[in-house]
C-alpha cells in the first residue's frame, strides 16, 4: 500500500471520530417540543401579511396570480370610469353648467337686468358648446334718460 492510500485510510478513521461527538444527554428528547412550541408561537404572532409573503415568495405562481388580479382590477376600474364619463352631446352633469347669480344680480330689479339667460341656457340645442355671452352677466342696464323727454 502506498503512502497516499495509507494516509487516506487514516484520514477516514480520523473523520470517524466526529461520529462520536454527541449533544448533551436528553437533547433530542427536548428538541421536537421546542420546535413545535416555536411553530405554535409563530402562528399566533404572525400577521396575515407575514404569513402570505413567504407563500408568495416560495411559489412564483402566487406572485403571477397576484399581479394578474391587480391588472384585472385596474382594467375593470378604468373601463368603469370610461363608461360613466358623460357623452359629448351634453347628457352628462359636467357639461350642464348653470349660470351663477351674484348677490348684486339677485338684489337688482328684474326689469333692469340685462339677461343673457336665453343664450346661456340654449346649450341643449344642436350646439353642445355654450356660446360665449356678449355681455358680462353682472352688468346693470339702466333706462335711458334724455333731458328733453322729462315732463
Amino acid at each position, binding site marked *: 500500500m502506498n503512502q497516499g492510500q495509507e494516509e487516506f485510510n487514516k484520514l477516514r478513521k480520523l473523520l470517524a471520530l466526529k461520529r462520536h*461527538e454527541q*449533544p448533551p444527554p436528553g437533547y433530542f428528547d427536548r428538541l421536537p417540543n421546542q420546535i413545535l412550541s416555536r411553530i405554535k408561537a409563530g402562528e399566533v404572532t404572525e400577521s396575515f401579511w407575514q404569513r402570505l409573503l413567504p407563500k408568495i415568495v416560495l411559489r412564483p405562481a402566487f406572485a403571477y396570480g397576484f399581479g394578474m388580479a391587480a391588472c384585472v382590477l385596474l382594467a375593470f376600474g378604468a373601463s368603469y370610469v370610461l363608461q360613466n364619463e358623460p357623452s359629448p352631446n351634453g347628457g352628462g352633469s359636467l357639461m350642464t353648467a348653470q349660470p351663477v347669480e351674484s348677490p348684486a344680480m339677485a338684489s337688482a330689479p328684474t326689469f333692469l337686468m340685462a339677461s343673457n339667460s336665453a343664450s346661456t341656457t340654449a346649450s341643449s340645442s344642436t350646439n353642445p358648446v355654450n356660446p360665449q355671452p356678449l355681455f358680462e352677466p353682472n352688468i346693470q342696464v339702466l333706462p335711458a334718460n334724455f333731458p328733453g323727454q322729462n315732463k
Partner: protein
Amino acid sequence: MSAPISEKLEQAPANTEPDDLTLVKRAKQGDMPAYDELIRRYQQRVYATVYQMTSNHEDANDLTQEAFIKAYRALASFKGDASFYTWVYRIAVNRTINFLKTRKNKIHLSLNDMDFTAENDPDLVALVSDKTPRRDASLSELQEKLNAAMQQLSEPHRLVVTLHDIQGLPHEEIAEIMDCNVGTVRSRLFYARQQLQAILSDYLK
C-alpha cells in the same frame, strides 16, 4: 466502532409506522403529532450535518430548529418529488450555508463531548496510541484539530466530507441534496480530502 446515524435510523422504522408521505399529508392538514414524528425521525441527521458544518452546538441547535420550522411553513409546496428527508436536508443545508457566509471569519468552536464508545473505538485507539499514551487528552486534542481543519474547507467541500465520509450518504443522494451532478460531488470530495490530508499531515503519518 458505532454505526453511523443514518444506518441506525434506517433500521429504526417498523412496518407498522406510517411512512413519511402519510405523515406529511397529515401535517399539511395541521396534525402536529404527525409533524412531531417527522422531526423525531430526522432530527439527529439534520442536527449532525449542521453541527459538523458549524462545529458549534448552539449554532447547530438554532439552525436545526429554524430548518424544521421553515419546512413546516413550506409544507404546502412539498410535492413529494424528493423524499421528505432530502427536502428537509436541502432546507437545512441552504440555511446553514447562508449562516456561514454571514459568520465568515468569526469562527467559534463549541464542541460536543464525545460519547463513551470513542475510547473503545479500535481505529481511534490506534491513531491515538501512535501519538501519546495519554489517551483522553489526545482524543480531545484530535477532536479540536479535526474540527479546526474542517472549518478551513470551503462550505461545499466541508459539506461533501460531512455527508459522505461522516454520515455515510451515497454520492447520488448528496448530489440531490446539493443540487449538482454526481461528478461534481466526486471531484469536491477528492479535493476536500486532499486539503484535509495536507492540513492534518502531522496526525496522519
